[in-house]
């Protein structure tokens, strides 16, 4: 049977737009993170609790991705941070083009830090580059310390892992040592933060890490 050789990346289109986004971020000196987790880990809470402090010194903006509602954008707006909501209407992840379209809402020349809060999902967003500098994956102590083993693709591509809800450790079967071991055997280069958005414990070192990339 005649064969036509193709050898094409299935997500080539997305990768090309992501490369454009990355160039836009670099040209404007914007540090961009792609924030990923399961639904309910605390992505929006982390932003609520830390962006105001960062915004004292730097220009910050947020792109919110959700399947439905603008609830998260309203929470970010409430703390005074410019925000654009992308509603995917069923789509399980953000794609580079959606982010690029959202960028027109911001004054990029004066922006220092952009957070793209992805749709809550530990599977699909792992495969879609958005042009970010770092992928930050969050998990919370109520989800179980085997999350990295269950979603290896996500933890393999992430640069940073945040463990949230450490205030609940006395009440849940979650071992900090086990989760670290599980995550580091998949990705030995992961940098790990332990924090509680509820009590504020550990937020300082996260904020310092962000500031270090903005200076």
């Amino acid at each position: 049977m005649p064969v036509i050789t193709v050898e094409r990346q299935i997500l080539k289109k997305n990768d090309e737009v992501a490369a454009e986004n990355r160039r836009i971020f670099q040209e404007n000196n914007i540090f961009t993170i792609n924030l990923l987790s399961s639904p309910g880990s605390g992505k929006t809470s982390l932003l609520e609790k830390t962006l105001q402090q960062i915004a004292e010194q730097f220009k910050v903006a947020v792109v919110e991705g959700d399947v439905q509602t603008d609830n998260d954008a309203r929470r970010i707006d409430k703390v005074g941070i410019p925000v654009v909501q992308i509603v995917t209407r069923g789509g399980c992840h953000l794609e580079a083009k959606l982010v690029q379209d959202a960028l027109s809402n911001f004054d990029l020349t004066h922006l220092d830090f952009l957070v793209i809060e992805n749709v809550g999902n530990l599977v699909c967003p792992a495969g879609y580059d958005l042009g970010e500098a770092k992928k930050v994956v969050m998990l919370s102590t109520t989800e179980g310390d085997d999350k990295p083993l269950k979603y290896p693709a996500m933890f393999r591509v992430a640069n940073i892992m945040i463990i949230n809800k450490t205030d609940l450790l006395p009440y849940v079967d979650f071992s900090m040592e086990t989760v670290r071991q599980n995550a580091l055997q998949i990705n030995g280069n992961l940098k790990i933060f332990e924090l509680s958005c509820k009590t504020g414990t550990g937020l300082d070192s996260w904020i310092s890490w962000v500031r270090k990339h903005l200076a």
Partner: protein
Amino acid sequence: MHELSLAQNILDIVREYLPNQQKTLEEVHVQIGSLMAVVPDSLIFCYETLVHNTPYAASKMVVHILPVKAICNLCNTVTEVKNDIFICPECGAKDLKTLQGNELIVSHLEVR
């Protein structure tokens, strides 16, 4: 799941290579790295759904799953990664670079 989105992208590539009906598409072969968390049956189902009532309706998708391979950044040992454990079997280092496993590729089309 994102299999539908992947299947749509695959169909777009097929359309680009076979825009007219001079040749009939028999099989579209794709390579999927096993790190990509793609379910082959689901991808095939989505593809078959999308090509329904198109010139490619009779075509089949063949999925080739590629195992994960990595190289140790310390001792350069190349290893096949099993159970997502990225630890060098030679020196025990955790600093491994993925060589294979992230693929999402349309490799070739078989036509008649």
